[in-house]
Every structure is written in structure tokens, then in C-alpha cells.
């Protein structure tokens, strides 16, 4: 014996209604979607939080002004307290200070190619990147190699006999 499933597909003159079967199938689908969303929505938002990070600027005194002679380039380490995820740490960074006719320039030591640590060679008056052969002149302009941009310059100020550098954190 056959029983009408109310599938809505036949032409038996029956009303086109959503069958029980279809209704349940759709419901299961919708519930699955909701469960999926309930897990992955919050998790993706949670993991994506670094995207909302705002850069802040911080002024740090790094060197006595008198310690940097005319035409001199100095590698200056300085330590700042930074928030590293869940902990506060003292972290040491390095900046290259150059005094020339245009004043004091503070160069970031990360190669603009892929971020290796560049090194200054006084005898050549150039910065060399150990990774893929990037070379910069003493103002940070690219001389050769793959780096696409000159070295990043930090803002510098001289206040009360000290050289201050602005870092973004």
C-alpha cells in the first residue's frame, strides 16, 4: 500500500506543501550551519585579534649627544620595556645613528627585503645584509641587492643633551 509523502512533486491535485521530510532535512542543515558558525565564528574572531592592533609611538633616549661625532655612524643598543603578548619584558633593540650635514639620522637595522639584521662596515661605510646580499649606503639608500626600499628612518630629536628616537610599538 502506498502512502502519500506530501512531497509536493506530483500532480494529484494536492496542495504544494513542504513535506515533513524536506522540512527536517532543511532543519538539520540549518542547525549544522549554526553549530559550525558557533564554533568557528568566535574562534576566528579570537585568532584574528592581531589585526586590530594599533601602532603606538614611543620616544626613547638612546645616547648622549656628545657621544656621536661629526660624520660618525654608531650602532646604539637600547632597552625598553615592552608588552610581548601576555608578558612584560625588557627587550633590547638597536638603532644606527648617523650624524652628517643633514643632521642626525636614526636608521632601523632590519633589512627592508625580508627583515634580516643588517651590519655596518665602517671601512666600506656601508650596511650589508647577510641574507640575500642587500647593500645600503650610510644614509640607508639601497646600493645593490634585492631590498626594495631604503632603510626605515626613525624620528630623532635632541633634548637636554640626549638623542631621543621614536619607535613604534
Amino acid at each position, binding site marked *: 500500500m502506498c502512502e502519500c509523502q506530501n512531497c509536493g512533486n506530483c500532480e494529484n491535485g494536492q496542495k504544494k506543501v513542504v513535506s515533513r521530510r524536506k522540512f527536517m532535512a532543511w532543519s538539520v542543515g540549518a542547525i549544522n550551519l549554526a553549530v559550525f558558525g558557533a564554533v568557528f565564528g568566535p574562534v576566528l574572531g579570537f585568532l584574528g585579534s592581531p589585526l586590530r592592533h594599533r601602532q603606538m609611538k614611543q620616544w626613547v633616549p638612546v645616547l648622549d649627544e656628545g657621544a656621536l661625532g661629526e660624520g660618525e655612524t654608531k650602532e646604539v643598543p637600547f632597552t625598553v620595556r615592552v608588552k610581548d*603578548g601576555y*608578558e612584560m619584558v625588557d627587550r633590547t633593540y638597536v638603532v644606527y645613528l648617523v650624524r652628517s650635514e643633514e643632521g642626525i639620522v636614526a636608521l632601523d637595522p632590519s633589512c627592508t627585503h625580508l627583515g634580516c639584521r643588517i*651590519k655596518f662596515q665602517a671601512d666600506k661605510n*656601508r650596511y650589508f645584509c*647577510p641574507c*640575500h646580499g642587500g647593500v645600503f649606503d*650610510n644614509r640607508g639608500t639601497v646600493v645593490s641587492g634585492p631590498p626594495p626600499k631604503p632603510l626605515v628612518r626613525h624620528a630623532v630629536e635632541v633634548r637636554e643633551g640626549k638623542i631621543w628616537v621614536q619607535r613604534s610599538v
Partner: protein
Amino acid sequence: MSRRTLSPERPVENVPVPETQEEALRLERPSLRDWTDLRLGWWGFVRKNLDEPMPPGVGWWQTLGNLLLTLLLFQFVTGFALAMYYAPSPSSAYHSVKHLTETVPLGSFVRGLHMWGSGAIVVTVVLHILRVFYWGSYKKPRELTWVFGVLIFNVVLGFSFTGYLLPWDQKAYWATVVGTRIAATVPFVGPDLLRLIRGGEEVGALTLTRFYAIHVMLLPASLVVLTGLHLYLVRRLHIAGPVLPQKGKPVPFFPVQLFRDAIVVLVGLGIVVYLALAFPPAIEAMADPAGTDFTPRPEWYFLGLYELLKIVPQGYEVLATVVIPGLISLGMLFLPWLDRSPSRHPAMRASIILAGTFVSLTIGLMTLKGVIETPPPHHPPAAKAEAPTPDGTP
């Protein structure tokens, strides 16, 4: 009366009706083997796999998959052991690894097994891919076996990239600084992608926890699923014979092929154990963002990419970081559809064979160049002979 084994060939409903009292007793208290088999169908499964037909001509080249499986098992076990001594934070990661390597009994050996094992997996996976490629075994109906394989390959590379950071020494730190910066070269979304991967602006505490979670949770889970699918398909579709069918009847997997597998596993693991003992893993100085005496260098199998970065012209690094690796990955993934020739014979798909050989050789040679030219740590090269200008300015 001989002992009855209940196996799936004998459906459960057909459990025999006991005829004698003695038999009734035996069926009531079956042997452990019968008891488990009735419930799990285990012996049937084992027998089916041992009897799997191998076309004539299947031999040593088909043992690499099983070697991979064994090496993976080793990684899981040694990785689990290492995780028990490891602490994923910048202030403790380095010390925990140093401690487990230098103080914990057998620590150096277990870490050595994990380290050399990962290298062995990369080598074996590449050999396995090459053998499948030259045999044309990725063709209909085995396209998806290949696709799952390519996904597995990417997971393997992900393992080594994330694992490399975990010891938090100079090598780890700087390779990750440079490696993650590659993401920043992606057009438009690069900087955001970099922040997502690092968990912030700089490589730090959140990068370490991210990499750790990916290395010990996400990738192992993906690998188990993908390997399961891969092996299911290998058995479902059976192994492809040689390109030119050879005479003879198929032989069962057991004993000949299994014996070959065992020999290869013995040799492969022997090499890993030897390397772990002869070249115990080192740990360098602790990660130091300000340190100057360190030349970043990636794990050796990424050295090809590293060399590529040196040769692309200035301003086009996206070629080396995204375009070329991306094209190679996509080409691998869609190989079964790029190769339209219905024949598996190399001569009938010469362009694909040539392209694949060219790409593999290039990667091989660039890797070799990288291995030869990349200096060991702490011996920074004198800066390359750069024609000095008389006054030191450009």
C-alpha cells in the same frame, strides 16, 4: 574437528548452530581470537590487506609509502615525548629545550630522532612523489590519491616551518623573522597576513604559542585525516602496476612486498637512528633580537627558496615569495588534470615529464647551491667583495 574461525566472510547471522554439547560449550566460550573477530572483523581486515594483489613489476620503489608511514609514527611518538618537557614561552622555551637535551636521560637521542626523522620524511616524501610522477600513477582513477598526497606534502612542510621556531634559539628566531616576512610580500593583504601569522607586529610570545598550537594540534590532526584518506584510496583503487604491464599474475602483498617494506623500514630507520646518535641535535645561543653575529638560515630544504630570493631582480621579490612557489604548488595539485594524455607512458606525456624534471632539477640544484654557500652559524662571511668606492660613498 578443525577449529572454526569466524571472519567477516562468514556473516554474523550465519553463526553455526551447535550440534554437539562439546561444540556448544566451545561457541559459548570462544577463543579470544574468535571473540574479537566476531566483533571487530579485525582478522578479516588484516587478511584482506595481506592478500592485497600487487601487479607484477611492483617492487622496491613501492616501499617508500610504508617507510613514510613508519617515520610518521616515529614523529608522533617522539614529538609527544618532547612535548612533555617543552614549555612554549619565550622565557622558558629555550631553557626547556636545553634542559631536555642536556640533562634529561636520552633527551638528546629522542630530540635527535625527531629532528633527523623530520628530514628523513622530507627526503622520502620527495622520492615517493617522484616515483609516482614518473610512473604516471596519478592518472585516472587515482587523481584524488595524488591530491591528498599533495596536501600531505604541504602539511609536512608546515610541520618543519613551525617546528623550527620551537627551540627559540638564534637560528629558530631569525629563520622565523625572515620566513614570516615572506607573507608580507603578498599583494594587498600582506601586512595583515604577517600580523595574523605572528600574532602581532614582531616575532614574540604570541608567535611561539601560535606555532606551537599549529605544530602539535592542527597539523597532526590534519595529517592523520589526510593520510587515512590517502591509504584508503590506495587500497580501494589498488596499486598501479608498471607503465608497461608485465607478464605474470598479481602476487599477494604478503609475504614478498611486505618483506621488501620491512627491509626498507629497517634501513631507513637505521639511518635515522645512526644520525641521531652520531650528530646529536645542537642548540645555539638563545634568541636575541638585537644580536649582530648571526646569519639567518632556514632549514636545508627551504634553501632552494632562499637562493631564489637572491636572484630575482629588485622589486620583484613577490615572484620568488608568492608567484613561483604558488605556481609550483598549484601545478602539483592539478597535475592529474594538466596531464591530459590518457597514457602513463613517459614518451606519451613528454611535455609533462620534461616540465616536472626541469622543476625538480632546478629545485635540487638551487638547494645544493644553498647548502654549499650558506655559511654555518657564527662565522659570518666577510661581506661579499663589493667594489669599494674611493671615498666610501656611492
